[in-house]
């Protein structure tokens, strides 16, 4: 405890230098959290999309870009659904139309402002999955044409409740339920019947994709080949194929993320080493005195290491705090969702485990940064230093 206090005072003794070093470490950590959390979140969103239709074959228009089974653009005629129903090995075919609406910056907006999904009402529970509707919400009757359910994030952003009416592309729709889901994808969804979606989005008799459930004894791969052979201009993707399409993107995001984090943390380690070296060179007489009065080498070593660790602890805490705020702001900038919504769910964007891992990594890096100065301090030759003062 005394050593810790002493180290705190030593750092405080050189206020500006210590402040700049902590500022540097905190900035690095802030950057890592902001960029890391944002990119990890997008990777997670892409991965969580893979949860949908995981045992089905997804049929989309040929040559469209597909992210985890969700095609970006491109439609196929709804008549294809009936064709597929007639194929051997098909248990069920669910047509689906959806539209990703980007409002800000289009290309840079990885997460769309909202996702309009149209599919037969009977299939809505499959999309909602384990999510639930907020109290008061219900699924509409099968023949309903103006009832919709929306994600909690949109509802909270625009103050929409169960029973509210909304105007979507000129069509008035009734909100019959609000989905509460940890999935960002569902949180921004507007789910309606297929017919209503085709009308609202102006894609008459068109669908974005069809989800084909194979019969129990039929393999996805077998069915996909059969669909592609018998139906023109479609692409049938099995679960593995969909994962293969997305995995490289997720891997690239995660690898770059890791590399950037590593470089930034390495630079903060260098910063701590430089601070330590300057401190040691200025405090040689202090270390020589400690040696003269009989302090073990480990004592001097610990002083420098502890000082580096304190810089890491303080810089890490400040950096994580500011980085979390920055991550929420960044997420807001990229999605059109107000930052206040992200603040309330900050632990989803920057999970506590990630904070802890990063904090430990920063402290360890700072300690490593303190090793060379600590060795230098412990190597101080007292006779030389003390002789030099006379």
């Amino acid at each position, binding site marked *: 405890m*005394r050593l810790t206090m*002493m180290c705190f*005072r*030593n750092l*405080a*003794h050189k206020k500006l230098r210590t402040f700049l070093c902590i500022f540097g470490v905190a900035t690095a950590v802030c950057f890592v959290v902001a960029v890391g959390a944002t990119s990890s979140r997008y990777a997670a969103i892409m991965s969580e999309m893979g949860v949908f239709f995981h045992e089905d074959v997804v049929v989309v228009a040929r040559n469209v870009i597909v992210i985890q089974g969700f095609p970006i653009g491109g439609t196929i005629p709804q008549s294809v659904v009936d064709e597929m129903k007639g194929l051997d090995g098909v248990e069920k075919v669910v047509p689906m139309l959806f539209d990703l609406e980007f409002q800000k910056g289009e290309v840079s907006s990885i997460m769309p402002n909202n996702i309009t999904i149209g599919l037969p009402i009977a299939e809505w529970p499959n999309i909602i999955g384990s999510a639930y509707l907020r109290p008061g919400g219900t699924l509409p009757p099968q023949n309903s044409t103006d009832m919709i359910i929306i994600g909690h994030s949109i509802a909270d952003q625009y103050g929409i409740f169960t029973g509210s009416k909304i105007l979507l592309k000129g069509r008035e729709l009734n909100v019959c339920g609000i989905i509460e889901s940890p999935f960002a994808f569902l949180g921004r969804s507007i789910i309606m019947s297929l017919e209503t979606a085709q009308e609202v989005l102006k894609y008459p008799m068109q669908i974005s994709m069809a989800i084909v459930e194979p019969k129990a004894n039929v393999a996805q791969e077998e069915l996909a080949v059969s669909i592609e052979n018998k139906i023109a201009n479609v692409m049938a993707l099995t679960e593995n194929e969909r994962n293969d399409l997305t995995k490289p993107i997720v891997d690239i995001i995660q690898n770059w993320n890791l590399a950037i984090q590593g470089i930034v943390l390495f630079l903060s380690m260098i910063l701590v080493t430089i601070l330590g070296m300057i401190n040691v060179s200025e405090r040689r*007489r*202090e270390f*020589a*005195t*400690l*040696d*003269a*009065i*009989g*302090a*073990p*080498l480990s*004592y001097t070593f610990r002083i420098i290491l502890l000082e580096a660790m304190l810089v890491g602890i303080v810089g890490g805490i400040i950096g994580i705090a500011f980085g979390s705020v920055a991550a929420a702001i960044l997420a807001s900038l990229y999605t059109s969702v107000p930052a206040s919504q992200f603040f309330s769910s900050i632990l989803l964007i920057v999970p506590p485990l990630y904070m802890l891992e990063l904090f430990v990594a920063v402290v360890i890096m700072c300690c490593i940064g303190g090793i060379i100065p600590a060795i230098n301090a412990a190597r101080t030759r*007292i*006779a030389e230093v*003390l*002789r030099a*003062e*006379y």
Partner: protein
Amino acid sequence: MNIKTLDLTKLYHVGASEIAAIDRVNFEVNAGEFVAIVGPSGSGKSTLLNLIGLNDYPTSGRILIDDLDASTLSSRKRRRIRLLRMGFIFQSFNLLPTLNSLENVELPMSLLGKSREEQRQNALKLLERVGLSHRLFHRPKQMSIGEMQRVGIARALANNPEVLIADEPTGELDSKTAKEIIALLSEINESEKTTIIVATHDEKIVEVANTLYFIHDGKLKLES
């Protein structure tokens, strides 16, 4: 503690030449003695004290501490002797700037693993003894140089050493403060029978010392 040196030599290499800072010094200090080593600047006083204080290794010769050859001891064992049996007083005090008087004095005791309570009690007694009971929580920057040297002396006495090694302890003090410090050292020597070895220019220290050595160009000569 008896300290004895046998043909103690310390050579420094400056470029191609070799300088004998200490040249075959034979020297003996008995327990309870007050020894002053006098000599001009660069004569080897500090080098000799560093060797005797086990802060440096000789080029040749031996240092015997109570008949134990200390010149070949490992740095760990030397450090242990310094901590347990020696106290150092420096010309420029060398107090740790971020610690207050009390903490500076407690430091050697904490290195020895004494309890917080014991450290505090002893430090209070020592600071009272050197007349600084009113400056317990002041840091070096907030004290006069005379007060700093008193804290330095209290720190040197912290682990109740058998020998005090002081290098120009009055070098930076005004004459009045220097006189007080000399009186304090003399009192410590008489009351505790602590051996004191002082390298100095100060004639007043010479007056209170039992034994006087003169050093010039690394050669030591007994004066009285």
